């Protein structure tokens, strides 16, 4: 037991490296925020474009979304990070991770928004249009408000799962939480930084998970 505490919760390690862990947390949060905002925005825009029913455009969206859903994000991160410099385009690792995760989130969000839009009954569209609302107005004031409430729980769960992938940044050297911790582990030959990182992730994500649970219950209540 003592050995475990010494290995995973050594006080002297905690007091000496907490600023570094905090720096890492900050970068994880920053990355998370930009990924969530850009990913959800792009996903919503794609779903809206799909409602215009332009066949070739829809086909392209569906294919891209499927690819982004089927290929592991770590594979894409490695392709972009190690491939692009050889063709003369060097992106900082933070930007690579942002780009990949935002695209993946956009793909999943598009699917969820689209399913939500489809689930709004045809009659709602017809009624709104016949009262003189334009297509865009119908979408914005009648269909989307109903969609958002319906898609919120799955959207939040998916968003958490994808945002957690910011930890993949450690593989390409983004100085985020996990990266800071593994660096310290190899400096200090002690696992305490990893425990601190795990706790850091819990501090960041547990509130979001609880928010998701709350949404789900609220949603279930409305359905009943």
């Amino acid at each position, binding site marked *: 037991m003592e050995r475990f505490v010494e290995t995973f919760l050594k006080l002297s390690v905690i007091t000496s490296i907490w600023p570094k862990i905090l720096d890492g947390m900050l970068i994880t949060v920053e990355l998370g925020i930009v990924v969530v905002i850009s990913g959800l925005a792009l996903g919503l825009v794609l779903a809206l474009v799909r409602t215009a029913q332009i066949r070739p455009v829809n086909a392209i969206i569906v294919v891209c979304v499927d690819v982004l*859903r089927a290929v592991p994000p770590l594979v894409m991160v490695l392709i972009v990070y190690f491939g692009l410099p050889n063709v003369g385009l060097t992106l900082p690792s933070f930007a690579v991770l942002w780009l990949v995760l935002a695209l993946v989130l956009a793909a999943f969000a598009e699917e969820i928004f689209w399913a939500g839009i489809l689930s709004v009954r045809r009659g709602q569209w017809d009624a709104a249009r016949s009262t003189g609302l334009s297509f865009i107005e119908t979408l914005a004031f009648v269909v989307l408000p109903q969609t958002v409430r319906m898609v919120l729980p799955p959207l939040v769960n998916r968003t*958490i799962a994808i945002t957690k992938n910011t930890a993949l940044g450690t593989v390409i050297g983004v100085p985020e939480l996990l990266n800071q911790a593994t660096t310290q582990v190899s400096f200090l030959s002690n696992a305490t930084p990893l425990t601190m990182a795990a706790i850091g992730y819990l501090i960041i994500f547990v509130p979001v998970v609880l928010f998701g649970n709350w949404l789900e219950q609220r949603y279930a209540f409305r359905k009943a």
Partner: protein
Amino acid sequence: MEALLDQFFNVSVMERALPLLLRGLGMTLLLCLTVIPLGFIGGTLVALARLSRVATLRVTIRVLTDLFRALPPLVLLILIYSGLPFAGIRLNPFTAVCIAFFLNSSAYYGEVMRAGIESIGFGQWEAARSTGLSGRDTVAFVILPQAVRNVLPDLVSNTVEVAKLTSIASVVSMTELLYSADMARSLTFNASPVVLAGLFYLVLLWPLVRLASRLEHRVGT
């Protein structure tokens, strides 16, 4: 354009990397066949535990589920693989991956299965019990089959997520598909092997992605 093709779709590099990648693919399949059933069984047990009469068990399982949903799987894996040796517990990569995946995907499959079980009306339980089935038989032959059917889209898409997630095993130098591809990349200074690995994942998982989204839309309408 030619530079792009040469860097990302270099056929001769891909050809040379193919044997290595195929071996990696075998390991990825083995991993999937191990961690997906493990996670599904774990998740079913988790979902059943949430129905337990013992409040402590219910609450513990619930807290653990939320913790493992909040913790990135890569953090869990590195904690197990690189953290435990400092305490004298040395695991091989395969075991470490299995433990990490069991903890992570039991939580996710557990949430899906719970939703499935909750979707079954109480009348089903009562009817099954009144025909003389035991509690265990009721769960196994009446509740679970219907629960699985009701949440099939989520089960399929969660399985895709788990299969994709096996790629993080490369970080603990498990010689699966992505690890082999990345090794080939660092030997050839060319990203084509990783693109090829991506294509393998695509071929493997695209049918499931299509299936999931078709099932989802059918339920939605």
